[in-house]
């Protein structure tokens, strides 16, 4: 999986097209590599989805197109597809032996620009360049329609490094995007002009945050690219950029919801209480800043945990019990590795927004794993939960809350603490050992969304230090008032329920958190990843894993992240309760025992 960074040879396009192939089947990988080389493409092969994501993130502009198999052990191909689309905005082609219409449709829904059936023929691969070309044209078209003459002038003057040879009209794009790159994307490779090719918008954490904020402000239902664009006030961003990002965001949210729909089978789970206000989903990043509304949308996106970790922990909802174990244990080693690196530099972690996001994400992950009925006494402080609180309070002190909770929340690892500190919209660190009291005080950072169903069991937990992870009590009778809101939660919890205990959970959680701290990539992105993983997973209940983590009993603490924006209304209820932390247990009971 190595690949020397090679800028595409634009003079002989499509030759030199930089393709990244991801497939867990080594035989297919080799065949595809050979086929693509025969097409004169620059091929990079990858056997694992997370490695692929790493590669893509390391070289933001290093690839033109991604081809990925749908069924992979470490990550669902659709998830990878989504992430690539969101983070890198690259065209992605899906492959599978299974040509069932529903699968193909799913692929398209997730943003695949094509869906190939195995066995794949050479001729099918020869034409993949059209997807790259099409995207470029659309970008240019968008730019042209929004751009002033200036860009064209610059183009005419001959930008010295216009390597966007793909399109004749690529110059404005490259010019414009280059400016963007300089202004916005530090991770772009400025040094090498020839590498600043494709004018692809990279949705950095900040940018996405702005986006989510704007969406929240407008109101998820009334949102439109133009409005968002205006609100965001990012000069170089085009309406088209926003439109496509919005589309992805919507897809992402609807997928979350659908998963919930699918998984919510427990009777009595009313989602009504999950108010859309809980846009904690975005893990505070955007929520904190956007107090006005629950940012359902944010929920999905705000979460960008450590990418590496996230990837490894990705739980494929399709994975059944046994599978999760394998998956979970996979990243563990990786996490641990990463942890060591980070452990030595708490300061760094502190300053890393990613870290906090990551921890948040990891928490999510862990939450997923928790068994519903598990007796996991984990106090899970989630910044996400905080967010809703903040929101209710109309931004009057989200950060304060966070900090408070942050300080009080026990952190599974030293890094976590640090991380949270520095991050403004940070999520409270996971505090595995914190006492419930602290937690309560700190904030209602609960994994609320996950508490699709709270049973009385849960209630009792509230009062005890070793509270169980209520999140997972989906299968219990408690009903969420807000069916909608809980969809994602129920989804998650249901998943969890279905999973067996995952011993490795603890370790994974910790290492994951630590990993998060190391924070690579934008926090937002990692949050996204985490969220994605979180939501998707049929996670093995991490009973053990959550042992150290106290989970708040606040069911109403929403994992707002997962809840679509418009579903947050019920959260209002929670809000009232939130203000009085000490009453939570009781409230929860009242709330969730329907």
């Amino acid at each position, binding site marked *: 999986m190595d690949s020397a960074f090679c800028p595409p040879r634009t003079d002989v396009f499509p030759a030199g097209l930089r393709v990244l192939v991801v497939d867990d*089947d080594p035989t297919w990988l*080799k065949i595809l590599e050979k086929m693509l080389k025969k097409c004169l493409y620059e091929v990079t092969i990858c056997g694992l989805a997370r490695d692929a994501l790493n590669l893509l993130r390391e070289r933001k502009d290093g690839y033109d197109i991604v081809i990925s198999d749908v069924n992979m052990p470490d990550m669902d191909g659709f998830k990878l597809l989504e992430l690539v689309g969101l983070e890198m905005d690259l065209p992605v082609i899906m492959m599978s032996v299974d040509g069932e219409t529903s699968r193909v449709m799913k692929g398209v829904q997730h943003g695949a620009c094509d869906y190939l059936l195995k066995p794949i023929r050479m001729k099918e691969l020869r034409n993949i360049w059209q997807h790259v070309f099409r995207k470029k044209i659309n970008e240019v078209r968008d730019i042209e329609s929004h751009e002033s003459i200036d860009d064209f002038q610059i183009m005419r003057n001959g930008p010295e490094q216009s390597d966007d040879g793909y399109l004749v009209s690529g110059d404005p794009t490259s010019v414009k995007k280059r400016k963007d790159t300089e202004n916005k994307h530090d991770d772009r490779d400025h040094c090498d002009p020839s590498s600043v090719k494709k004018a692809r918008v990279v949705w950095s954490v900040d940018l996405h945050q702005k986006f989510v904020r704007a969406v929240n402000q407008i109101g998820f239902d009334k949102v439109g690219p133009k409005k968002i664009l205006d609100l965001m006030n990012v000069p170089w961003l085009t309406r088209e950029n926003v439109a496509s990002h919005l589309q992805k965001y919507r897809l992402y949210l609807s997928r979350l919801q659908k998963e919930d729909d699918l998984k919510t089978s427990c009777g009595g789970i009313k989602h009504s209480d999950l108010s859309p206000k809980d846009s904690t989903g975005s893990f505070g990043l955007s929520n904190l800043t956007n107090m006005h509304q629950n940012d359902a949308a944010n929920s999905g996106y705000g979460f960008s945990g450590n990418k590496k970790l996230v990837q490894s922990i990705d739980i494929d909802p399709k994975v059944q*019990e046994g599978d999760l174990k394998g998956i979970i244990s996979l990243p563990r080693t990786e996490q641990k590795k990463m942890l060591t690196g980070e452990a030595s530099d708490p300061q760094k972690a502190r300053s890393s927004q990613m870290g906090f996001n990551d921890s948040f994400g990891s928490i999510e992950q862990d939450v997923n794993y928790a068994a519903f009925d598990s007796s996991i006494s984990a106090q899970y402080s989630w910044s996400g939960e905080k967010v809703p609180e903040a929101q209710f309070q109309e931004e009057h002190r989200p950060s304060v809350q966070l900090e408070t909770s942050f300080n009080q929340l026990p952190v599974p690892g030293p890094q976590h603490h640090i991380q949270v500190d520095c991050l403004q919209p940070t999520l409270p660190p996971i505090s595995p050992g914190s006492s419930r009291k602290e937690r309560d005080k700190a904030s209602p950072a609960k994994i609320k969304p996950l508490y699709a169903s709270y049973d009385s069991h849960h209630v009792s937990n509230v009062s005890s230090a070793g509270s169980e992870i209520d999140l997972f009590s989906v299968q219990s009778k408690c009903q969420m008032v807000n069916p909608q809101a809980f969809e994602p939660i129920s989804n998650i919890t249901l998943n969890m329920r279905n999973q067996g205990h995952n011993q490795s959970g603890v370790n994974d959680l910790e290492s994951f958190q630590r990993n998060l701290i190391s924070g690579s990539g934008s926090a937002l992105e990692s949050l996204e990843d985490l969220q994605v993983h979180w939501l998707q997973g049929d996670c093995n209940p991490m009973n053990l894993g959550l042992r150290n983590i106290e989970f708040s009993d606040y069911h109403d603490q929403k994992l707002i992240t997962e809840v679509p924006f418009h579903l947050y209304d019920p959260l209002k209820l929670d809000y009232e309760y939130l203000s009085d932390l000490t009453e939570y247990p009781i409230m929860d009971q009242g709330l969730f025992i329907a």
Partner: protein
Amino acid sequence: MERNPLQRQVAYMRRSLFDQGYLDEQFVQLEDLQDDANPNFVEEIVTLFYTDSARLIHNIEQALESRPLDFIRLDDYMHQFKGSSSSIGAKKVKNECTQFREHCSARSAEGCVRTFQQVKQEHTILRRKLETYFQLARQAGLAN
């Protein structure tokens, strides 16, 4: 062009593998990919397939031993195996895989166990035939 008896033999054997349904069009694709840069490409791919499929077969065998049978996991494994088999054009093997998956959907333990034996059988038969084929091809090439 066939120039010597060995080459004719190789061609004949190749033809029969297709005629008898052991291989399909994908195998031809692999042959087309073979070139000076990768003169033994087809054989390499087949070898890679057999190495990797041993692992998949092992997984399935293990899964078949657990009680109760996890049909979803079995189906998943078989899906992988089928995908892999399609890479070399192993037609009969693929067909048996499909049968197996049908038994998974029907949740028939007996059906799964039985068809899996057939999958393994076809898998082994094909391997032997291909080994012979490549050996012959090598000899024919040397003799040329």
